[in-house]
């Protein structure tokens, strides 16, 4: 069974070494998303890259991190200011997407 709807995809780019209240920022971001009842969030670690400060992210524990979040425009509008407050440096990007949710209960 599939459910199709228009949604937004949000990407947060920062580095693995970034911290928030003493813990990894990416963990804090995922927890905050959950508290705000955002549909889902996935954290990916890149191999290397560079960003705002033009420094290569390739040291251990300072790899680039991308968090992708898919939800409705309204929910992301609630989330974005929170993320801006938590992130020191980094980038936030959104794009329009068509989200297809697939549910086939196990036979």
């Amino acid at each position, binding site marked *: 069974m599939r459910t199709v709807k228009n*949604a937004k995809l949000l990407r947060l780019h920062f580095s693995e070494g970034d911290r928030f209240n003493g813990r990894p920022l990416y963990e804090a971001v995922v927890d905050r998303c959950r508290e705000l009842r955002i549909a889902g969030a*996935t954290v*990916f*670690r890149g191999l290397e890259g560079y960003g705002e400060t033009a420094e290569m992210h390739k040291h251990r524990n300072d790899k680039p991190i991308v968090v992708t979040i898919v939800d409705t425009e309204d929910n992301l509008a609630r989330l974005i200011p929170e993320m801006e407050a938590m992130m020191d440096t980094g980038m936030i990007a959104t794009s329009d*997407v068509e989200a297809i949710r697939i549910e086939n209960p196990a036979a």
Partner: protein
Amino acid sequence: MLEKGAAKKVTIFVNEDTQHRFGPLTDAILTFLLHKGVSGATATRAMAGFGAHHVMHTTKIEVLTEHLPVRIEFIESAEKVDELMPALYDMVSDGVIEMQDTHVVKVANKERPAPPKAPHAELRGAARLMRIYMGESDKWEGEPLYDAIVKRLRLMDIAGATVYRGILGYGVKGHTHKGGGLFSRDLPIMISVVDNEERLRAAIDVIESMMQDGLIVLSDVDVIRLVRSRSPEEVSNANS
């Protein structure tokens, strides 16, 4: 050179000892097909059979081993078969020629170059990006779901797919995907695929039938350039 898609399969049944000019008919047919550039032909000797003469030929009884049936089979495009048929019709003085529509699924060739046509060269400009989210421990027919999906996409000639493993996340089911012990981890997996709308729609139908629970996200992208199309050698290496 045989290509994927619709083709004709020709099967010729003859007797092992039927002669054509100065040699066996089977040899004459194979030589003819080779000479005409047919991409492949196989002659198989039967272990038993009978033909229009209604005499049983079998390897079990020595006196009946004469006139054993031989089956010659080849697959070619409809045009090529049309071109060859008059000569074959003429050559088969005793036997049967049969032809059927077939569908070539895969042509893998390690040594000989494939036609220079680049496999995905037509992908330019606007395209669609598809992201498929699932868990690492999701299975399909006993193998990891992400593996099964990538294999299926390859079979469908989808331009490309990349599998990413996340380090943390949660999804619609609400449970957290994270790396636990060596044998219990269920990290998030995302497959990204770029191709045109029509082909991705076809892929979604297939993925839907394989997936129990997951999310597919489509967005518009501009494909700026393709680095290069793969050389035939790389294609066959990837196939092996």
